[in-house]
């Protein structure tokens, strides 16, 4: 990794005004790409900042954070023989794509375990805080925690996935002043110390969301994972203006009062998603800076992917591990730790942007938090575009109210039968009836959430919880309310229409269709994400 570190200082994000000399712009398009020419004179492209330098000695930084925590005694001081220690960690949804070994969780947890061993703690459990996500497989746990940790704990059943549906595995910690139920994994709640190990990829992650969401169950999550909250989070990436976070923070108060002592460890990574060199390096370069070699390797990759069946393309990208570098680590009490973390995340992601646009275009990549080692189904396409990308703003949305979002993604009618069983039914049955998030929530959420078969698959197989597709749909509720039209370029028309969007075969067709809504010659903004950027819209 050290060899990849660049000599010059990383450049910040950039807003490029498109003129006649601007080369075609790269759009991510699932397991492939499109090169699109944007109309000159009224288009702009927002580029993410180049990767910030990683910590030179991550091990030392971690050790330093554990020994000098914020608003807390050093970790060793919190450890004593005979105590019950639980280490909870972020699941497979972070980071994206999964990172090269050693994973940050492994680095942190190994040090925590060393300190626990030194203090004579022998009752240690490790729990993947996956809330209602699918269980992690043994191989995935191995990757996140390393062989040593896995082999030491898994055979003793001291390393496992959180099970929100275990009838004996959850406890109620109380209710917030807004009458929100707070529940927590029993082992974590009944521990003498809960250490939470986080990877903060976007500003939404971390803080009280780690424990109040990651270790909770449906009955607790439903207070903030709902349409009302999402429509009042502007955006959920911007904590002070996020109803989602306000609710989680209220639940945090209850955890502080009635839950276990928490030692929060948060980390941030840089934007080095595709590497400074290597086959995908071109994806984090700006098009006019592509060298002849970049161009050639991109064209070869583009042509190769086009010739491969979708499953093979998925295989190619699924094997990509990001060379992320850790940019910060902070430990201690949840709130001060998260303040510091958020500042570090924003330092990498924020790009100042002047004013809104009529049409927002985005190229959706092959991965989102919920399809690691899986399939990006149409609902996840919606969630990634209208949930994540749309909400990556501070201030006001990039696109004006009543504007148009154009997303580029193949949007195939494809589902992973093991990971997303309830998605299939949600898509094929419920969306055929209505696409209105509030109506779906009122009519069907409870039924899917308490469905015996989905619960069974969530607990014993590797399925997202029955209610999860609803959350995906709610994630886009703010955008659905805000936008005048959503157009998907290059998607399966049947699947696109099923979601209430409009299919277009080319970007120019899509822009033509958009003009019905926003008038002729609209302003266009393209977010060149990933690597991740967050628009700071004035």
């Amino acid at each position, binding site marked *: 990794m050290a060899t990849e570190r660049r000599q010059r200082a990383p450049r910040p994000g950039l807003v490029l005004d498109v003129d006649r000399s601007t080369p075609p712009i790269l759009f991510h398009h699932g397991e492939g790409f499109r090169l699109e020419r944007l109309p000159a004179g009224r288009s702009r492209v927002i580029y993410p900042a180049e990767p910030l330098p990683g910590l030179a000695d991550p091990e030392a930084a971690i050790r330093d954070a554990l020994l000098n925590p914020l608003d807390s005694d050093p970790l060793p001081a919190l450890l004593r023989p005979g105590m019950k220690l639980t280490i909870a960690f972020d699941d497979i949804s972070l980071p994206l794509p999964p990172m090269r070994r050693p994973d940050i969780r492994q680095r942190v947890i190994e040090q925590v375990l060393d300190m626990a061993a030194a203090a004579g703690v022998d009752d240690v459990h490790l729990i993947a805080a996956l809330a209602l996500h699918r269980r992690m497989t043994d191989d995935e746990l191995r990757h996140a925690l390393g062989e040593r940790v896995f082999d030491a704990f898994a*055979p003793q059943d001291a390393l496992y996935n959180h099970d929100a549906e275990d009838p004996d595995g959850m406890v109620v910690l109380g209710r917030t002043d807004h009458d929100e139920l707070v529940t927590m994994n029993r082992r974590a709640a009944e521990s003498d110390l809960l250490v939470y190990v986080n990877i903060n990829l976007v500003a939404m992650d971390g803080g009280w969301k780690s424990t109040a969401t990651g270790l909770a169950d449906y009955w607790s999550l439903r207070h903030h994972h709902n349409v009302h909250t999402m429509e009042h989070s502007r955006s959920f990436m911007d904590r002070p203006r996020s109803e989602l976070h306000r609710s989680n923070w209220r639940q945090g108060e209850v955890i502080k009062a009635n839950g276990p002592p928490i030692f929060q460890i948060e980390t941030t990574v840089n934007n080095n998603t595709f590497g400074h060199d290597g086959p995908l390096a071109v994806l984090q370069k700006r098009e006019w800076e592509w060298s002849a070699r970049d161009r050639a390797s991109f064209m070869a990759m583009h042509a190769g992917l086009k010739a491969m069946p979708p499953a093979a393309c998925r295989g190619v990208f699924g094997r990509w591990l990001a060379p992320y570098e850790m940019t910060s680590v902070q430990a201690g009490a949840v709130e001060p730790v998260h303040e510091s973390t958020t500042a570090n995340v924003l330092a990498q992601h924020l790009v100042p942007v002047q004013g809104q646009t009529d049409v927002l275009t985005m190229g959706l990549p092959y991965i989102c938090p919920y399809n690691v080692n899986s399939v990006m189904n149409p609902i996840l396409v919606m969630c990634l575009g209208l949930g994540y990308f749309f909400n990556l703003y501070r201030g006001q949305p990039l696109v004006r109210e009543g504007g148009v979002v154009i997303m580029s993604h193949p949007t195939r009618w494809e589902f992973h039968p*093991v990971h997303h069983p309830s998605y299939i039914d949600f898509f*094929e049955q419920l969306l055929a009836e209505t696409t209105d998030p509030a109506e779906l929530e009122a009519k069907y959420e409870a039924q899917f959430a308490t469905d015996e078969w989905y619960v069974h698959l969530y607990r014993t197989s590797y399925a997202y919880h029955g209610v999860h597709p609803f959350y995906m749909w709610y994630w886009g509720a703010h955008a659905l309310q805000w936008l005048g039209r959503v157009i998907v370029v290059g998607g399966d028309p049947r699947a696109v229409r099923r979601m209430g969007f409009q299919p277009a075969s080319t970007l120019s067709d899509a822009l033509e269709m958009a003009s019905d809504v926003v008038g002729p010659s609209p302003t266009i903004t393209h977010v060149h994400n990933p690597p991740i950027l967050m628009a700071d819209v004035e």
Partner: protein
Amino acid sequence: MSAGTRTNDVITESLAGKRIAITGATGFLGTALTERLLRCVPDCELVLVVRPGRRGAVQRVQRDVLRNDAFDRLRSELDQPGSPETYDEMTARRVKALAGDVSNDGLGLDDEGRALLASCDIVVHSAATVNFDSALDDAVEVNLLGPARVAAVLDEAGSKAHMIAVSTCYVAGSRRGAAPEQLVDDSPFFTDVGWRDEVDSARRARRDAEQASRSPERLEALAVQARRELGAAGIPALSEKVESLRRRWVNDQMTAAGRARAASLGFPDAYAFTKALGERALAETRGDIAVSIVRPSIIESALAEPYPGWIRGFRMAEPVIAAYARGLLKEFPGVPEGIIDVIPVDLVVATIFAVAARGPVDPSPDVTQVASGAINPLKYGKLFDLVSGWFTEHPVYDEFNQPIPVPRWSFPGRGRVARQLHRAQRSLETADRVLTALPLRGRHAVMSATLEERRQQLERASEYVELYGAYAECEAIYQLDRLLALWDSLDDADRSEFCFDPRSVDWTQYVQQVHLPSMVEQARLKMAPGAGPGRTESRSSRLRRQVLDPQRHLAVFDLENTLIASNVVASYAWLATRDLDDLDRVRFAARTLAEAPRLLALDRRDRSDFLRYFYRRFEGASTDRLDSDCAEMLSDLILTKSFPQGIRRIREHRQAGHMTLLITGALDFVVEPLRPLFDHIVAAEMGSSDGAYDGRLLNVPPTGEARYQTLADFAEAHGLDLRESVAYADSTSDLPMLEAVGFPVAVNPETKLAALARRRGWLIEHWATSAGAPTKLLPMGPRIRGRARGRRPALVGSA
């Protein structure tokens, strides 16, 4: 014209107050007669002799006669306010049902019945088997012996009744030229054979055919055919099929015998032949009973009474015309100059009225023919032009909403048409056989079922050619001297009320404005676009709604290929390879592949034997280990290979409050992870001791008929009604189970089941694995590198 204002014409007057018996009242002509008598002859009393059937004579008369749409006119006249009595009251007063059967000596009447029949003034015998392909002995019993039996009953009882026997012009046989109104034996062309000998030989032929059908060779051939049609459906289903094929074979033999005997004596078919001998027998045995014979030609829909176009049943010309309109009959034999002798039914009825009113004449029996060929001929060529012209203007639409163009016939000889059809049929049969032999499923299987349907249509078309070709080529001219003399004797009132003058028919108007519009409705031909593929769609969604109706009790599912695209071999392979290293995996795959043909053959022969044999391999496997591996296999193999729509359907049944049941030949520990989907699971169970399985099944694996039995037992134990149950399965081996329930569903059916399901109108579902499911070349378990590495005994040795 209302019942109250009837004029005092002669026919009405002479029939008024009479007691009139009719046999064959449930037939086309009999219904028309009954209706006309009730409507136009006040106060006559009717005795309808009908076979009692299951419901009894009274019910049959109610259901099969008096509710026919022929009576709509009369009913609406009577059921008006101010009418002195309702339709039901009138029929209750005037119509008596008498249980009797003309195929039995003495008609099966008791003393009371005999007395009632003998007390009639007029007996119209119109009962006949008009099937052109009825078995010889059936035709003999009804057509040949029927009239003589009626006369015998009347004669024995000393009745004074005038018997009117309805025969057919075609008793004249296949010949050219004039066929006068004379008794058959008066004709110089009639080859006289002893009718009693024909009766004996027909009965003997039935016994011989029954005997021949039970020969070992025949039974073996039938068993092969049954297996080809049903596949491995289990012994009870197959034996039932063999028996029904045997009965059909006997009937085919008898039909062929009838056709051959008729042809040998110069008749177009067994119907004309037995009718001719029936006239002979009647003349010979009538005793003192006065008999008049009325011979219509081909009776077709009504010209005017009870309303234009009224017809009962799908008769002779209709199937041919319908097949033509659907574009199936590219050619039909016949000479364009030839005459198609058709007569509307109301003209025949009026003729019978006139004959009855006139009374018997000497010498008895007298013959009256009612036909059109001699004085108002409808040429075959003209009929074709009228029909094709009409269908060009009013095309039938195919399933894709495209109008079907009607073919132009070139009127080749019968032999050439038959040969053409035969060729087409042969090539389709070959294609069909090839497709049936291929292991097709789902949509491909349905395609091949379509082919099968085409083949059947062709088969039917060539049957028509064989059956009716003779009529199209018949060039006899039926003389009408007596009919016209009778017509001349009527006064104007009778003529306008009871028209039977064949000259009154305008063929163009009759064919295009009366017959065809009514026929297409009768045949339910699709005369308008719109309902096209959408129609099949809405049909399946209607069926889907039915299966999910809360009134259903139970939904039973097969597993393999119904809910998951996998089988017991795959799950075994998955479990067995979990502990093998790469080299052993290769060896295992090679061994299993080498064994595959044998396993497949065994499976095809008998599923239970296959399972018993195959499951031996689990001998010695640790129970704990398999249980935990099966939980993992749910994710890695079963769900990956599952049909999400199928899983959803199970859950929809549960939501609708139905009990759900899985019956599978898979092992219980393999399907254990699916338990939350079902209220009950019946699976193969294996014995175990000391924490290891012994490889032997504890029960008969529930496949084929055992599956049906399992279902039946389950339903009974839980007080569920199978008629209110739904069953999902994919192969003909599940036929007993599918047939047992009220709502069978064929899922991704193999060809044979697809054909069956189509024919029977079952719901067919095409369920697929999820697009996006990980693909596995071979069903092998992922290598164990996890939690319990190193402390696991292997399921199979590496040898």
